[in-house]
């Protein structure tokens, strides 16, 4: 199968008071049509910047290098005018806080129709009809009446549905979702995640889901990439990674989440805190927090390498980590 | 080796970096203060000495700012006026700042009907034009610097109180204030030890601006004959002295005017600099 999206050597740098820092460092992954890929990491891991870099939504003084192949074309070198057709057209994006992503002074129906007129050839009447269909599709009750409502008249969960409806208006082939359920309650999160999966099935779109919540990954994604300090440290199918993590960070992350049946025992925590972008340690960036670290980890940065079909890890001691077992099974 | 040695130095320098506005404004105010305390060290003549042989002289080497209609040296009088005008800047604002901050902190913390009542008082006071109100009070009490301070203080504190009350209301909703209450700290401790240090910045910045405004106001009242009384050297009084000679002897009014502008600018810059320096680090 040919990947829908192919990201290679993606590097995003920002200029700060102390010089240039790499928020995303040599990141590569691909998304197959109809596949849900999870980008997992903690704050500052670069997961969100990666997502924004794909559509060149990084503001100056940031620069994006590498390549992002979308249906044979490179989004990073494409002229701005062509890119605008792709953004919100073939590739749509949804955000964590829908209130700031929606225009507060326009009724949501107008905002959906805006996207329809930018990316489809429908006439006015067809657009109105399609807007209602989309509101129905994302599960907003009384869709026809609510088209005239403004964003603040919707609850958090409903606003997220509105944003998804706007994103879907153009019939995208890829959905980029940046922590779409982090601001929502668990029952509403469950509704939205399942909505995204249903839409994926119906529309055969690929999804890149950025999240810090391993539960969300386990429940939604087909494949996952774990990010730490701007790099991908491990990728593979979600089932494989959960069953046999090969990177000490992945293992620590899985162990940090409490699971049932082991009440009031100490969690397998990772000591220390993630490094700031300006002070990433030499060698493997995880080495100061890693219980498996040896001299080589402090000197040499491990490369992301395939050790089994579809499974990549960037760790000098991944066999030992794997042998230590998964904390979730 | 050199890298290791320079790193901490760079860090220390970064911590000590003061805003440019603060340094520049501070220099102006610092120099002004020194002049205000020791005018005779800088002034070439006696401020009251009249020289009928040198009336309305334009700027020369002997009189760099010229002389006025009594033959007094304008430079000398501008320098001696620092004593009066800097005093106005401080005394016309110190009481409003302290009292207003105190009341504002209490009102902001109390909230509820106390705050509502305070709001009405503020409304009542600020609906009068400030200058007209001050002039009315001075007219009742009689002209002179002391009465001017009283008049300004009666009105001025509400501005500080309103600023501080608003900010305290914001701060008291933050968890560190809740935490103080949950720890069983007394309200006065929470207000003055915890909330006020975090709420005072706007009032402090406004105080600097207010000192500049006080000098303007003092000069205005001096000009109108309600503030400092002639023959005291005061910038407003000097400008008033020169108003009849604007076409023939511009220097009598212009140099005191420049002094007002420069001093006012100094206070404003210090205010801006303080705002930048005291911004809470996140």
């Amino acid at each position: 199968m040919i990947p829908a999206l192919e990201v290679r050597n993606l590097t995003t740098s920002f200029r700060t008071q102390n010089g240039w820092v790499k928020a995303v460092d040599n990141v590569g992954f691909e998304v197959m049509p109809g596949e849900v890929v999870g980008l997992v990491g903690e704050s500052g891991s670069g997961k969100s910047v990666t997502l924004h870099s794909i559509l060149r939504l990084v503001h100056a003084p940031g620069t994006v290098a590498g390549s992002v192949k979308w249906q044979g074309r490179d989004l990073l070198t494409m002229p701005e005018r062509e890119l605008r057709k792709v953004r919100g057209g073939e590739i749509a994006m949804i955000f964590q806080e829908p209130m700031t992503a929606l225009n507060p002074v326009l009724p949501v129906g107008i905002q959906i129709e805006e996207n329809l007129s930018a990316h489809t050839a429908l006439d006015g009447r067809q657009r109105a009809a399609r807007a209602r269909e989309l509101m129905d599709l994302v599960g907003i009750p009384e869709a026809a009446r609510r088209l005239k409502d403004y964003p603040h008249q919707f609850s958090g969960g409903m606003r997220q549905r509105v944003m998804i409806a706007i994103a879907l208006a153009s019939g995208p082939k890829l959905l980029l979702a940046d922590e779409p359920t982090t601001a929502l309650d668990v029952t509403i999160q469950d509704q939205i995640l399942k909505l995204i999966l249903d839409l994926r099935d119906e529309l055969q779109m690929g999804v890149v889901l950025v999240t810090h919540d391993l539960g969300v990954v386990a429940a939604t994604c087909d494949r996952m990439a774990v990010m730490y300090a701007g790099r991908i440290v491990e990728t593979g199918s979600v089932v494989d990674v959960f069953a046999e993590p090969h990177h000490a960070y992945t293992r620590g992350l899985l162990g940090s989440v409490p699971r049932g049946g082991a009440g009031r025992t100490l969690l397998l925590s990772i000591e220390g805190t993630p490094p700031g972008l300006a002070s990433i340690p030499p060698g493997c960036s995880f080495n100061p927090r890693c219980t498996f670290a040896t001299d080589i980890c402090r000197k040499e940065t491990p490369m992301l390498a395939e050790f089994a079909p579809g499974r990549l890890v960037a760790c000098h001691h991944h066999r030992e980590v794997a042998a230590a077992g998964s904390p979730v099974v | 080796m050199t890298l290791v040695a320079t790193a901490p130095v760079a860090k220390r320098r970064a911590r000590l970096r003061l805003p440019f506005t603060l340094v520049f404004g501070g220099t102006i105010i610092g120099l002004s203060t020194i002049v205000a305390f020791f005018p005779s060290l800088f002034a070439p003549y006696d401020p009251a000495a009249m020289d009928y042989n040198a009336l309305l002289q334009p700027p020369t080497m002997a009189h760099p700012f010229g002389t006025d209609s009594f033959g007094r040296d304008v430079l000398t009088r501008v320098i001696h006026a620092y004593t009066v005008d800097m005093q106005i800047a401080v005394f016309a604002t110190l009481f409003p700042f302290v009292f207003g901050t105190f009341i504002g902190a209490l009102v902001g913390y109390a909230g509820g009907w106390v705050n509502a009542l305070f709001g009405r008082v503020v409304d009542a006071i600020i609906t009068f034009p400030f200058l007209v109100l001050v002039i009315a009070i001075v007219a009742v009490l009689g002209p002179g610097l002391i009465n001017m301070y009283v008049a300004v203080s009666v009105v001025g504190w509400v501005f500080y109180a309103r600023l501080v009350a608003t900010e305290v209301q914001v701060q008291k909703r933050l968890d560190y204030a809740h935490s103080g209450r949950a720890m069983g700290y007394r309200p006065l401790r929470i207000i003055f030890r915890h909330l006020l240090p975090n709420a005072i910045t706007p009032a402090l910045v406004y105080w600097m601006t207010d000192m500049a405004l006080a000098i303007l106001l003092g000069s205005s009242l001096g000009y109108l004959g309600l503030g400092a009384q002639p023959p005291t050297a005061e910038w407003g009084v000097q400008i008033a002295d020169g108003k009849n000679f604007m076409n023939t002897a511009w220097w009598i009014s212009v140099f005191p005017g420049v002094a007002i502008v420069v001093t006012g600018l100094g206070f404003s810059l210090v205010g801006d600099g303080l705002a930048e320096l005291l911004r809470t680090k996140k």
Partner: protein
Amino acid sequence: MNAALSQTLIAAEEVSKEFHIPHGLWRRLTGQPRLAVHALNGVSFQINRGETLGIVGESGCGKSTLARCLVRLFDCDDGRVRFEGEDIADLKGADRRAFNRRVQMIFQDPYSSLNPRMRVREILGEALAVHKMRPRAQIPARIAELLDLVRLPSDAADKFPHEFSGGQRQRIGIARALAVEPDVLVADELVSALDVSVQAQVVNLLLQLQEQLNLTVVFVAHDLRLVRHISHRVAVMYLGKIVEIGPTEALFSAPRHPYTKALLDAAPELDPTKRTRTVAARGELPSPINLPKGCLFNTRCPHAFDRCFAERPLLSDRTPAHKAACHLTDFGAPSLQNLEAIS
């Protein structure tokens, strides 16, 4: 279970709390009633000495308001909170300060819960001095001890809060609470603002400190996995009421209220092989201004019947330690589940 564990330390009795919405001039003139958010609608439970009670629920369920009522940051409108049998609303002067010392709260936001203009030494020293925990001369040594207790380096004392990461700030918050040697810690979303790996560190610290200092803990959170991990007993809240309360494992393995079940089903399973595609709970939280008649969950409950719309169910025993507020008293009963499995 020994005698000390079953001794009731804090008891909430029918605690209610409303927040009035500013009464607009038009509403006042037209004589319409004043609107209020009903944050707590009669909450009752007991906390035993030495145990951890978890309080879970989604946003707007009143769990934070409840936490603030327990430490008397809010006074309840109705009902009372008793600490060692005494109504905390009646405490005055020295008694009130003693209560404030013995029941400590730790706040959610590590960025706003510490005074940004005080050094750690001043923050801890103030708590020690105000409650006269130590003679002045011993305060520096005690500060070092406290920092060690929460595993912060000793040079932390001379830094300001903004020089620390979120996890370290929560440790400072814990140290401040422990400075006054309390009996009870009320932790409101203690770790929800922290990264996953840092959450685990703070949770471990809390578990260790509780054992070491014999603390009673009220752990308020929206994260079901965390609450399950930490708590001996759990109370589930919905729209300002407890809908179910019971021993942690009993409640998680066999929830007796449809809302608890929906909440548990909605939380994503950490095992990718156990995925479902059915939505756990339809609909959204009704407005806390106009509460539904009858059972508060009736707008979303798949099992609701006539009685649920007419009569609000009370908390009643399912087993002696496990209570639920549902007219379907058999809901989730183990025997019934077996029957379903057989048929």
